[in-house]
Each structure stands twice: as structure tokens, then as C-alpha cells.
């Protein structure tokens, strides 16, 4: 599709929504598609916020976005005729974590204690998982800035599908079930008082947990959790707001996939989960499709003989096999979407590109093709 196909479905998706969340399994081009949607939005005159998680940092380099939690403006060359703007943030775990502590910690003293805590340092810098909270926390923060017309959110590569959307619930569960009140605080006090036995209700359970973790580990964890209790509360509150935001009328999910069997299996599961969680699906992008004209050329070439030994028919046969299989699998997507109540959702095929997306020009071309 070209630039002047003004009613292309990607444009339509952007026109109708303020928040677009890209989901899909790993390696399907989700980050690139998010960046392309943001670029397209800017071409349509919008002021766009792009929240991205790009482990490869390649796209960050191309877009000139510095890593971290602050938004920086993407400088498009003039010839690309971008009338709007894109402000991108490449989430860096530690920076966003520190920012959350900055925002929610009760006092300067607590904040400094948290930064100095050894568990905090390990968690904020090294462990996987928290990045998932981060995209949501950042989405909440930026959605409150009404100067942004469009917010595009790239999500973590799916290993556990939409689990990341349940993170706020895990936090809320932690607060609401009274883990702090009934387990952690009594234990902490008992330990402080030097009471050999752990007191009352939480006691039995805490000594049970201690049998597995060791008392020292629990002491450290308890101390850490008490320190960050307010931060967890803040996280949990903003998480709830995000879940609301994700259900708003002007929020839509965009499913990104390829035609590979494994991607389609993940896509089926994601569609199922989106339906179960009552989210709206605005578009499906099938990346790395085989260019139709190329398949025709391959068919022609297969019927030609070549004296050139460097170019084998074997190569062509492999490409043809790929092309036909992709076509067949693309057709199978319709029924999958239909089965989950998404039969009307527009599906766009995006052709494989031999050029890698690593310049703003190539990104803009990709955006035009959406």
C-alpha cells in the first residue's frame, strides 16, 4: 500500500485510537511494527509517544532515542515529510525502577535506603521480569499527558503471553491479601525483638517458608519489602489505572505475527486471551510475508534451465516451498480470528524486506507499506 492509500487500515487504526498496544510472540517484528505505527502516526500529523522495549537497541540507534525512561524526540529528515512528531522512550529497567522509587517512596531517607539495599540493586539491574511492569507503569505516566494524541506501546517478547497484564493484579493481591500485615511485619518485629519464636498467625507460615529459604534470607526480604511497601502500593495503584485504560474505547491491541506455524500457535493463544480478558483487537499484522510477484518469478525461473552453477534450482525450490506454505498459513488465520470473535478485524500482510530496518528512511518506507 502506498502513502496515498489514505484509508489503509493502519491509518484507520491510528485515526480511531489514542492508545495502541502491540502484542505478539518473540521475533515477529513487534518492535519494528510499533516504531512504524508511530512514524505513520507522525506522518498523519499526530504527536506520538512510543514506549519501546528493544533488547537489540538497533532501532533505538536508528531513531536516535537514548536508552532510559525519558522521552526523546525523533528527528526525521525533512524529505520524509513528517508533519507530526514522535517522542520515544526505550525502557531501561534500572532507570524506570529508580524513577518509580523516586515517585512513591515516603521520604528522602527511605529512598536512599532503598537505593542502597542489596536486594534492590540486584532486582533493579539484573533480573528479568520487572521490565514487564515498566511498560505498564510508563504507559500510565504518559497517558496523563494530554498533549500526546497517540501512544504506541511495544510489549515484552511473549514467553508467557499476556501474563504481563496480570502483574498489577499480582501486586494488588500482595497488598489486599495482607501479606505485609499478617506475614512480613509480625515476623520483622519478632526478629527485631530477638524473640526466638516467630509470633502469632503469620508465625507458622513464616517458619514454614524459612525452612525453605533460611531465616536470614527471610529477614533480608522482610526488611526490603517493608522499605518498598509504599512503592509497591504506588505500583499497584497505577497498575489498576492502566488496566482501566487498556479497556477504554480509544485503546486497541494490535496483534503482530508471522505466517510460521509456531507464530500462528502463539497468535491463536493471544487471540484467545484477548477475548477472555475483553480487550479490543484493532488490527493484525502478518510480517515477513513472501512478496507475491517474487513467487511468480520463482515459478518462471524454475521452468528455465541455467548454465550458471552458482544459482541452483534447489535454492528456488526452497524459496517456492516457503512461499506456498506462507500463503496457506495466511489463509488459516481468518478462521482462527473468527473463532475468537475477531472475524471483522482487518488483517494486513507485510512483505519480507531484505533491507534491515536500521535507518529512519527504511522505517518510513516500512510505515508506508503497513
Amino acid at each position, binding site marked *: 500500500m502506498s502513502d496515498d492509500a489514505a484509508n489503509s487500515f493502519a491509518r484507520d487504526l491510528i485515526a480511531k485510537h489514542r492508545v495502541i498496544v502491540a502484542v505478539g510472540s*518473540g*521475533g*515477529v517484528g513487534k518492535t519494528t511494527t510499533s516504531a512504524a505505527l508511530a512514524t505513520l502516526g507522525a506522518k498523519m500529523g499526530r504527536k506520538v509517544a512510543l514506549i519501546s522495549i528493544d*533488547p*537489540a537497541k538497533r532501532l533505538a540507534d536508528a531513531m536516535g532515542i537514548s536508552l532510559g525512561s525519558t522521552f526523546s524526540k525523533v528527528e526525521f529528515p525533512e524529505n520524509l515529510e513528517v508533519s507530526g512528531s514522535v517522542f520515544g522512550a526505550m525502557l531501561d529497567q534500572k532507570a524506570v525502577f529508580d524513577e518509580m522509587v523516586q515517585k512513591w517512596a515516603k521520604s528522602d531517607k527511605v529512598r536512599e535506603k532503598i537505593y542502597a539495599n*542489596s*536486594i534492590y*540493586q*540486584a*532486582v533493579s*539491574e*539484573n*533480573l*528479568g*521480569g520487572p521490565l514487564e511492569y515498566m511498560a505498564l507503569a510508563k504507559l500510565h505516566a504518559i497517558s496523563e499527558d494530554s498533549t500526546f494524541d497517540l501512544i504506541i506501546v511495544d510489549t515484552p*517478547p*511473549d*514467553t*508467557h503471553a499476556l501474563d504481563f497484564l496480570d502483574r498489577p493484579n*499480582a*501486586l494488588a493481591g*500482595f497488598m489486599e491479601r495482607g*501479606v505485609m500485615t*499478617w*506475614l512480613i511485619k509480625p515476623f520483622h518485629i519478632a526478629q527485631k525483638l530477638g524473640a526466638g519464636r516467630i509470633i502469632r498467625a503469620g508465625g*507458622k*507460615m513464616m517458619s*514454614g*517458608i*524459612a525452612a*525453605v*529459604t*533460611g531465616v536470614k*534470607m527471610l529477614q*533480608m*526480604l522482610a526488611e526490603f*519489602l517493608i522499605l518498598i511497601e509504599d512503592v509497591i502500593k504506588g505500583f499497584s495503584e497505577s497498575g489498576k489505572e492502566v488496566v482501566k485504560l487498556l479497556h477504554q474505547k480509544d485503546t486497541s491491541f494490535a496483534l503482530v505475527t508471522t505466517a*510460521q*506455524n*509456531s507464530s500462528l500457535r*502463539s497468535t491463536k493463544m493471544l487471540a484467545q486471551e484477548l477475548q477472555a480478558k475483553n480487550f479490543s483487537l484493532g488490527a493484525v499484522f502478518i510480517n515477513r510475508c513472501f512478496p507475491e510477484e*517474487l513467487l511468480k*518469478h520463482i515459478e*518462471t*525461473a524454475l521452468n528455465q534451465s*541455467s548454465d*550458471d552453477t*552458482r*544459482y*541452483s534450482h534447489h*535454492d528456488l*525450490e*526452497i*524459496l517456492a*516451498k*516457503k512461499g506456498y*506454505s506462507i500463503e496457506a498459513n495466511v489463509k488459516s488465520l481468518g478462521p482462527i480470528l473468527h473463532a475468537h470473535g475477531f472475524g471483522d478485524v482487518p488483517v494486513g500482510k507485510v512483505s519480507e524486506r*531484505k533491507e*534491515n530496518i*536500521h535507518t529512519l528512511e527504511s522505517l518510513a518506507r516500512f510505515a508506508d507499506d503497513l
Partner: protein
Amino acid sequence: MNFLNNILKRKVILITGKGGIGKTTVAAGLAQYAAAQGKKVCLVESSSRDQLSPLFGVDAVGHNLSELQKNIFAINLKPAENFRDFVTIHLGFAKLFERVFTKAIVQSFIKMLPGVAELTLLGRLFYFSELEKDQSFDLIIFDGFASGHFLSLLKTPDAVLNSGMVGPIIKETQRVRDFLLDPQRVATVIVTMAEKIVMKEAVDFAVRLEKEVGAGPQAVIVNRCLPSTLDQPSSEIIEDNSLDQNQAWQYLKLRQDMEYAAVKSLSKALSDSQYHSETAVTLMPDIGWVTEPLADNFAETWFAAAKEAH
């Protein structure tokens, strides 16, 4: 195949690389190859949807160790069940688990603890390799996470050990870590493809693995090379304008040129990096499409067509 013989001597193979690069196919291929040699193999993944079992004609096995074919077992490890198995089977606290860890309040607590999912996953890999008595597997193949996620998985033990905590879990973590970082027993394999930028990322990733975890890859697999690239992996790019009558030939030529250049740059980058001069680089042919279930001779054919790059 040198690299195959070398890699298959290990007890655990961890497969990683960029998303969508063919990790699962490589994992399944290695399993089939090893099983054909009489090894008892366990394929492990941890994902929302089973990706390994469909390659052997079984829709899903989930968190249940299942024999898919003779000598090929599979399991899709789920975090909550991993924690349970780690505490009950691995650490031997079955009764305690029932009494304490099934309580909602304790589950809410455990869910909040960072790194638990990663630690128990690594613990289970160790368990399948070293402690599992009923099956006694010869080889565990982990169809691992994509690069960034894989790195943080392997960094978790050190993060926990460095936080100053002590206790049974920590003690066990030390044992799991020592095992995973033993290159005689565990090998990491990076899967990549012959595109310059993708390869540069793979080399950067290899260096980070070595620097930050101490587990640099023992092999790099360059997946999806054109068969004709494999036939002449060392040939120079020839300027040739006679092929412009059909775009299919042009496409092939472009891809060949690109692949030659990329493979060349990979070998150079690896030998330049002080860490990976010894890493084996193997080029694997593009097979166009992975047909499910895999044919019985899939791995044999595929690996027979592979070439070592120098």
C-alpha cells in the same frame, strides 16, 4: 560434524538467539540426532504455548514430562509448577509445601519475590540432568529464551548470591550455578542468520554472555543459509549483470552476496573478540519450511548438509 560431536558430549545444551531465528527447530533437530545415536534426550521449554511437541506430532504436553518418540522426552515448564516441584521434589519439602505454600497469602508473597521463576527454572534443568532417578537422561536440551531474556535468566543466580542472602535455596543456587557454568557439562549454542546486523547482534551477545555470566557460547549456528551459499562458502562475490532477466535469480544473487559478506564478517568478528576465537561456527541450510511433524530423517539430512565456516 565436529561441532555436533563436540556439543553432544555435554549433559545440557542451552539454545538461544534472536526471536524467530529457528531455535526450536535446532533444539528439535539436535534431540532427534542424539536420540538416533541411542541417547535418552529430554527437551525442555518454558513458554506460553508448547512449540516443541508439535514438531513430534503431539499438540501439547504442558508441564508433564512425556515421551514423544523413542528416547525423546519433552516438558514445558510453567513457573508456578516449577516452584512446587523445586520445593517438593528437588529440596524434598513435600509436606511443608502442602501445609504452607498452597495458602493464598503465601502464594501472593512468593509471586512478589523477584527471581524465583528464574531460579527454579534453572534448578529444574539441573535436576533433570543430575538428580532425576527414574529417567536418567543422557542429554537435556533447553529451547531457551531469546537473547536479552536468556542473559537475565543466566544472571539470576549471581544476582541472588551477591545479595548476601543465605539458606537452603541459596545453597542450592550455588550448586546449580556451578553446574551451569561448567563448560564440560553445559554448552550454550547461539543461533543466528547470515545478515550482517543480525550477526553483529549475535557477536555482541556472545561477548556479553562471556563477560557478564562467564558462559560464552561453544557454538554459533548460522541458520537459513541458501544451499548455494553452503556449496561455495569461501567464494568471492562475482559481479554479474547477465542475470537481470528474472527477478528470482536477482533475488538469489542478492541473498548470496549478502550471506557471503555476513559469514565473512562473523568469522572475523569472532576471531577479533578475545573471548570467542575457539567458538565453532556452523552454517545450516535454509529448508524453506519446517513441516510438522518432522520427518524421521529430518535431523540426519539437515545436519549432513551443514558446513563448518572458517
